[in-house]
């Protein structure tokens, strides 16, 4: 019961940071989502030791471990777009797959090249 209370408290804190991120987005007219701004703020607060990890860990851990639950309702919304995937829409799946190959290969090749170069310099 105590654990549940702590978790709810942590999630409330995460929610407040999210609202703060939204406020920053609106005030500064940024196109970066408020939630992402909130994430960066929390990360900065944690590494600068302003925030203790014990203030958010239980809630954050629960959300991360069950991340899929929170976007199921939106995903179910595809029910209104089924017609899109018949016929020509099939190409969309192919496009996503081709693009995914590029992302996986491209990001991997560049980072692997950089780390190998770094490792060579150290030896």
């Amino acid at each position, binding site marked *: 019961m105590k654990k549940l209370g702590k978790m709810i408290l942590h*999630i409330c804190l*995460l929610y407040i*940071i*999210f*609202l703060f*991120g939204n406020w920053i987005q609106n005030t500064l007219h940024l*196109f*970066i*989502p*408020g*939630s*992402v701004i*909130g*994430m*960066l703020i929390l*990360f900065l607060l*944690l*590494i600068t030791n302003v925030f203790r*990890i014990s203030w*958010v860990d239980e809630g*954050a851990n629960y*959300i*991360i471990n*069950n*991340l*899929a*639950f*929170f976007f*199921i*309702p*939106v*995903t*179910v*919304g*595809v*029910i209104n777009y089924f017609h*899109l995937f018949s016929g020509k829409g099939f*190409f*969309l*799946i192919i*496009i*996503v*797959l*081709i*693009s*995914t*190959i*590029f*992302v*996986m*290969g*491209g*990001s*991997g090749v*560049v*980072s*692997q090249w*950089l*780390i190998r170069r*770094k490792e060579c310099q150290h030896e």
Partner: protein
Amino acid sequence: MNEIILATVAIIGTFFIYQLAVRIHHTWNYPLTAPVLIATTIIIIILAMFHIPYETYMIGGKWINELLGPAVVALAYPLYQHRETLKKVTIPILVGTLFGAILGISTGVLLAKWAGFESSIIYSLTPKSVTTPVAMAVTDTLGGVMSLSAVFVMIAGIGGVLMHTFVLRLFRLDHYLGRGVGMGSASHAIGTATSMEKSQLEGAISTIAMVVSAVVVSIITPGLVHLML
């Protein structure tokens, strides 16, 4: 009164179906049994069987949506956990994911434009490589359809895992860093789960890449898309 009952049934129902999907995924651990795919399929079948409109389901569903924002904020936690690893390899991860993000956005936009799809679909497709809550937020900013973007994210995740052996070999990715960055930047949490099975280190790199790539994509997408459309 009726609405409150409907909302409660939708929320509790979604929760139990999700738990069931997680259990199925634990028993048969394949990319195609990803809990989100199973749970979504079950709910769609139920809605279709009883002729329940999506809008009715969302009377409850929208409350679950409320937690998507804090869910993104919570991603700072795994990034913080892996901060020592992150410090050691900041440049390779940052440059790698940035390159991957530019490739992913531009190939997505150009291919979809070339195939003649309308811009709201292109906006929904662009952020497919990042974790669903962030992809939905980016799609929303651009003016796309959030439900569609969630589906494209799922295709990128499951497809990426199904193709990863082939892709990693094709691009000669044999270093744990290259493999982890590739999996995390292209296939988000589903890719990260696969990396975790290979090694803890590769999983950590994949987690970092997933979060960093979510930040990078949400920053560069609007500018890059408007440049190309």
